[in-house]
């Protein structure tokens, strides 16, 4: 079972990369021209996140350098480690539903501090990739149609973020922790 899941990680991307142009060729789509057309957007997307990522990374780096990060994480370390959760992911759990750029910046910071293949960085990467910024999604979607009373939507989003957080930790324990 674990081998199968690991196999998904290794095979998913190459298979997708091969399947899409093949499928498009069968549908008589000019694959290369489509590719070039879409690839242009990739550049502007990457450049477009510079301001928010610089802003957030500056704040997070300062927060870490001042010792404030260690002070806060240290408070929660005993509680978290009892459950096998590295306390360093706590700020991520708080940032993730609020700000996409902020949580991405924090994951980057963790990857830089602990190394990309460390357990903490893997958990953080999983959390970042497996859920979306709840508050942003609610603001954009409901704001666009003028909904002011979102009823239980925020609660549902936050509860599923909370469950997703533990699911990410558990998934990493299952796949990387026991090796």
């Amino acid at each position, binding site marked *: 079972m674990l081998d199968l899941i690991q196999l998904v990680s290794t095979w998913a991307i190459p298979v997708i990369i091969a399947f899409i142009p093949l499928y498009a060729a069968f549908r008589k789509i000019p694959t290369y021209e489509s590719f070039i057309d879409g690839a242009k957007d990739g550049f502007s997307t990457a450049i477009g996140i510079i301001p928010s990522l610089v802003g957030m990374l*500056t704040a997070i780096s300062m927060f870490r350098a001042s*010792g404030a990060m260690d002070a806060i994480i240290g408070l929660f370390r005993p509680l978290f480690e009892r459950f096998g959760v590295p306390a360093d992911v706590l700020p991520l759990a708080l940032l993730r539903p609020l700000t996409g750029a902020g949580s991405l910046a924090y994951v980057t910071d963790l*990857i830089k501090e602990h190394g990309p293949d460390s357990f903490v960085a893997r958990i953080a990467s999983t959390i970042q*990739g497996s859920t979306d910024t709840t*508050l942003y*999604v609610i603001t954009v*979607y409901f704001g666009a149609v003028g909904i002011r009373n979102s009823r239980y*939507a925020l609660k549902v989003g936050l509860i599923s973020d909370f469950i997703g957080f533990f*699911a990410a930790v558990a998934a*990493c324990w299952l796949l990387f922790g026991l090796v």
Partner: protein
Amino acid sequence: MVNWIWMGMIVISVLFGAINGKMEQVAEAAFGGAQTGVTVCLGLVSILVFWMGLMRIAEDAGLVSKLARLLAPIVRRLFPDVPPDHPAMGYILSNMSANLLGLGNAATPMGIKAMQELQTLNPDKTVATPAMCTLLALNTASITLVPTTIIAIRMNFGSLHPADIVAPTLLATIISTGAAIVVDRWYRRKAGRPPKYIQPTRPSSASPPSSPPPRPLTPPGGG
């Protein structure tokens, strides 16, 4: 909210820096952080250019609508109060398919169009309907097949296996999406009988659309 967090982090950093006598490190970190931000984004260019090019092929080849057709039977059950042939359903399906393929740029406009269509079924234009809440729950959980940005960052910091987070991400995203659906269902039931919808095609004689049934404005159970 984000404004306060950002400002708070910077101010607390300077306060802590002053108390701990680490002002010099704090100042250095400010510029170091900014530099890391730019370096990381430039590192993202390669993968995002490639991936978005690939995803444009998928879009042009009609994979989004293909996926939408596959998802239709499941999604209809998640939105029992949206007529299956209503335009809202089409946009909901496109939104979910685009999310699944990681086409964030395409998913958002589709989701907003779905919201606009759901709004035409809404008797009170300022209060979210259960269907809107379900659509939102699915989008906040956002099933992701390939977390490209994270893979790119891991690659840039010299990971030996940058893609090995695909499997745990998939596992976690399935669980959190499942949880979102279950929790949404639970709240939907708790909120009571779904409100009467405006029937655009054939208004029923039993309940004239001019007098919608009374409904609490705040969700039961309080904030």
